[in-house]
């Protein structure tokens, strides 16, 4: 399932996938795979993304 919350949070901060990838120390393709729902990140990467985007885990990764 696509992670549209992550994509919109990233877009809201005016960050490209590459910029976010550099902030959290992964490759651009990893961010792309997370947004497309092709890859399930570990909790460590989830928290790193949340910190970079100033969001909580619930905001970005909790599905209602």
């Amino acid at each position, binding site marked *: 399932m696509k992670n549209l919350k992550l994509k919109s949070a990233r877009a809201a901060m005016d960050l*490209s996938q590459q910029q976010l990838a550099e902030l959290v120390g*992964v*490759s651009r*393709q*990893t961010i792309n795979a997370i947004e497309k729902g092709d890859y399930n990140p570990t909790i460590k*990467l989830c928290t790193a993304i949340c910190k970079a985007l100033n969001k909580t885990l619930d905001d970005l990764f909790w599905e209602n």
Partner: protein
Amino acid sequence: MSNAWVMGFAVAVVLVIIIAVVIVIIKQIRGKNKAQFDERQLLARNKAFKYSFIVTLIYAVVCMFTNIFELKWAPAFIQFGLLPIIGATIFAVICIFNDAYISMNYKKNIYVYAIGVTAMGVIYLLNYTLHISKAESNLFTSGTLSDDSLFLFSALMFVVIGISLIIKKTIDRKASENE
């Protein structure tokens, strides 16, 4: 094939392995230039290794049966030489298309790497054609693969890896433009 040729090839392979291992150890000790893969890339590499291992295992079993039933399709030297070539090619191609072949700290040099690998393939191909023209033989001799065919397969491996790198880079560039 002369014994000198076989010995020369064996010594060259051993030398390359020793030099590669020494370089890797020195780099690991220094901690500088250490390959950096993220968690998704490590998973992709593990999966690629698994697939290449399974394929090489199947190839080894097929070779064993062809030898048992005396279906001679290539000399033992070629059969053995093809094993790492097949494994390395499968591993590299799966890694490349999962963006896990070149580490994040070497990404900027991807074109240099791709051109280098392709050039290596071209050199092997030239070597193969040179051998074929001198020996006046073909890919097959007496119904089995000729000794020189290993040059051709090595060339194919390098060319496939080089072209895969360039294709993947082009796909990535288009994807980041469309983002």
